């Protein structure tokens, strides 16, 4: 019988085809298995590593499931109050114009409590990058309705489905900020399949590149799942996202430099 290699024999440098970026820490992710946040973290950190920006990067974490992003991202970070990440990032960037400054925010953080900060950071054309993870729900607090929750969608605070008559309409904040002269590059992506991951990574690369070139604000939305909040398995949630979220939040570039 031929020799079956042991694990140690396989795990040799010459066999290495892929490894985690060193810009992710060894801490186990606190996200639910199947959640898109982890993939979004990895992509951003990979790009920062590939662009050799670790020493020049200051990130701002939100309030939401990704509040602990600083536990996983091996870069200097500040944790902002709920919705205030764009203001915090403005304070940093104005005083360190040569650093790479980004925010990472959920939909409740960015499009509800922080709407004012979001609009104005975009309108000022602050030379920062905003990563916006839209899962149509408040994941962290247990699945309540978000500004982005789809019509009819059941959540803990819309148990009979979002009634747009009384609860308003899902906010397309990404289309909204694309209207503002201060935004330079606005794109909507997803990270639930390898093909989507590759596209999303391209958008993240562009967004970071534009900040290096002092072009103004770049805004990358990632439409993502919240399998726990949506009360689905990860697979069901990804299918539901494709069938329901993508028609309302179509993927692709929304504003590209002329």
């Amino acid at each position, binding site marked *: 019988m031929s020799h079956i290699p042991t694990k140690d024999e396989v795990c040799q440098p010459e066999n290495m085809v892929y490894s985690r970026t060193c810009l992710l820490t060894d801490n186990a992710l606190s996200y639910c298995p199947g959640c898109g946040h982890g993939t979004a973290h990895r992509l951003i950190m990979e790009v920062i590593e590939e662009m050799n920006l*670790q*020493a*020049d*990067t*200051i990130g*701002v*974490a939100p309030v939401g499931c990704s*509040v*602990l992003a*600083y536990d996983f*991202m*091996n*870069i*200097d*970070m*500040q*944790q*902002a*109050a709920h919705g*205030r990440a764009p*203001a*915090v*990032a*403005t*304070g*940093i960037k*104005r*005083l*360190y114009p040569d*650093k790479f400054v980004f925010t990472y925010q959920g939909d409740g953080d960015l499009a509800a409590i922080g709407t*004012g*900060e979001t609009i*104005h950071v975009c309108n000022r054309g602050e030379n920062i990058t905003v990563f916006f993870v839209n899962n149509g729900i408040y994941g962290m607090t247990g699945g309540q309705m978000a500004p982005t929750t789809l019509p009819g969608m059941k959540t803990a605070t819309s148990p009979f489905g979002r009634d747009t008559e009384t609860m308003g309409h899902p906010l397309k904040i990404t289309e909204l900020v694309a209207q503002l002269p201060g935004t330079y590059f606005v794109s909507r992506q997803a990270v639930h399949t390898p093909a989507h991951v590759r596209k999303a990574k391209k958008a993240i690369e562009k967004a970071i590149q534009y900040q290096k070139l002092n072009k103004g604000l770049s805004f990358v939305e990632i439409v993502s799942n919240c399998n726990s909040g949506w009360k689905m398995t990860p697979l069901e949630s990804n299918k539901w996202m494709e069938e329901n979220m993508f028609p309302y939040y179509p993927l692709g570039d929304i504003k590209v430099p002329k």
Partner: protein
Amino acid sequence: MKDIRLMKGNEAIAEGVIRAGCDGYFGYPITPQSEVLEYLMANKTKERTGMIVLQAESEIASIHMVYGGAGAGKRVMTSSSSPGISLMQEGISFMAGTELPCLLLNVVRGGPGLGTIQPSQSDYFQTVKGGGHGDYKLIVLAPASVQEMYDFAKLGFDLAFKHRIQVMVLSDGAIGQMMEKVELDEQIPRLTDAEIKVKFPWATTGKTPDRERNIITSLDLNPVKQEIININLQKKFKHIQETEVRFERIMCDDAEYLFVAYGSSARICQKAVLLGRERGIKVGLLRPITLFPFPTVELAKLAKQVKGMLSVEMSAGQMVEDVRLSVNGAVPVEHYGRLGGIMPAPDEVLNVLEENFIKEKKYEPHTN
């Protein structure tokens, strides 16, 4: 030659922060302190010292911009008046939780609500007792002159960085708007980014291979750790209480009666002391300069000497509670205050002192 100028209080503190090497100001207009932002903009600080000045979209945004700058080790500040300071409480609490140094200015106007644009001291509780959520203190400096508005810019930044704490200059519409002569100091150079990296190793200046990543956060979900964080904060406040008390004694040595007042009210009481002496009343004034830490020990000492204390504030009686706690029943303490933006006159407060402690009482004493 000395550089002496005639300035408004608000302009003096704006000039003070430029000269104190401030890196960034973030603010939103509100009467009676808009001159701070206006003065900074008109002075082209970017060209003068490299200082950044930004008009934010709200006081909420302003204070969180300050948080960001402070978290990266910069000397940053904001200013506002009462309604705007209320909006900032979230950010101030976050800065308390992350121990970020900054300078804050409240040019107080009368409340509650939109209230009035006239001077008031009714934000004492908000400033000295907390304001935002959680167990924390600010160092609170109470200027009583335009010169002190200027001086407290540098003092405020120095204390903020010495203790990694938020320093609030608690002024009022009168001190902010009045003009007096001010003696200015030499320009202090701003720190370079390289100096900041060395002086403040905790700051988020970008993770270099020589150190672990820096994180600015007030979150710790582990209650055991969170209690330790809180206990350490309290230790710091206690240390500040023991080392940073500032006050001024005016004609206290032989005083039989005492005014206790800060800011504008102290200016009024200072005049009332002179009037009282003309009337043959041995009256003095204890002027707290730091409201936290409060001159508790000094008041306790004076309580052994005087027959009564009158706390004079443009409020319904806020600081008087700290005066009473300080003397702990050793001597009668009364409060006198005008509300809604009215400033009392010197003879008015002197009459109240006389009526309360010296003459036979014609009416019930003012209490809160």
